[in-house]
């Protein structure tokens, strides 16, 4: 599973693992392995969400270059 897969693919993978575990064909060892894989992946997903950080910015272009500044809506300034 390439590290760079996007969030949506990770969520789809979580669903796939759940189904594999549920369809009951896996023996105990395979189930254990799938379980760990699933838990690791779900932790990865929550980590992505936790690490996101609120940013509301405004891009100002001066001469083609884009400068990014914090953006305060009128009532916040």
């Amino acid at each position: 599973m390439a590290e760079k897969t996007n969030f949506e693919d990770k969520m789809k993978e979580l669903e796939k693992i759940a189904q594999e575990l549920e369809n009951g064909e896996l023996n105990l060892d395979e189930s254990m392995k799938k379980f760990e894989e699933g838990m690791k992946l779900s932790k990865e997903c929550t980590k992505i969400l936790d690490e996101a950080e609120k940013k509301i910015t405004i891009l100002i272009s001066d001469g083609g270059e884009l400068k990014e500044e914090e953006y305060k809506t009128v009532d916040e300034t």
Partner: protein
Amino acid sequence: MEYQAITVTKLNQYIKDKIDRDEYLNNILVKGEISNFKHHYTGHMYFTLKDENSLIKCIMFKSYTAHLNFVPKDGMKVRILGTVSVFERDGVYQIYCKAMQEDGLGDLYTKYNELKNKLELEGLFDDVHKKKIPYMPKIVGVLTSQTGAVIRDIINVSTRRNPNVYIRLLPVPVQGQGAEEKIADAIKLANENRIADVLIIARGGGSLEDLWPFNEEIVARAIYESEIPIISSVGHETDFTIADFVADLRAPTPSAAAELAVPEISEIYDKILAFEKRYKLDLKKKLELNRLRYEKCMKSRVFSEPLLHINEKYIEIDGINQELRINISQILNKSRNEAISLISKLDTLSPLKTLTRGYCIATASDGTTINSIHNIKKEDIINLRFKDGDVGAIIN
């Protein structure tokens, strides 16, 4: 078959449904002359639009009348952009006007329709070119005016759905002279610098003139060529600018655009937790199943009394030994007796026995025994065997 009569209400509803479903009637451009115009105290305008030989009822709600740049009067020639629908109570169809303009200014509408048809033929509106809106965009880009309710609504809705949302506002003028170039440039700039994973292009309600930049070809092409998926929300819910047709997704309002761009984070957390629960439950079930199987095995007597099995085997072996011994001795006895009886029979029959009783065996010179006088003739030399030896003899 006795015909079932439908009620008037049902009939009107049916007619209304028929008309509402007609794409063409949803966004129709009509010209004609105003007559018996009434500006109701509620702010809504009621009038009829007529030409030489027919007329149609019209209504313009207050929210739209605010954008008129002229005061409508009976006898005025106007062009109207609106939706045809049915007022069920009176069983009357009428035009619900969204924009109205003195006919002299017809050019904007014709330009709108011409450009719309041209781009449509070129396939800029086709679904096949619509890009998928990312499920979880890291950055949401917004192209709208720096001030005003639009950006505020978008920020409020987005942060409500995802407290850690990352929004980048790329301010653009949303009306007035030259706005279209600036909007198109902003879209190109956003793409060159990959400022976001999804772009929202939005502006609030307005008259046809106010929304006009979003009906310009330059904006339409910029949207079409954008690598980044674009959600558009221009004007009121019922306004459809060309930008809306070209965009990858059209939202009725800026807030709706934010909802389409930013997923509800709490839902995603719940989903992930739900998966973890499912994993734990499944594994628990699997472990339980295997534990039961293990216990069942352990309960079996093979384990509880391990020696039992071996002892059984011992008994079996002894039993078999016993049988073997019996069989063997029986076989031995039997064969001994047989041997004895055979020997004794042999004895009685043995030629030696008869010899001892004084007989002898005559054999010819070639060794064959002679058992009849016819087999010999005079002068033959024969051999006689006595119990204690052989002699030769001549027949006389």
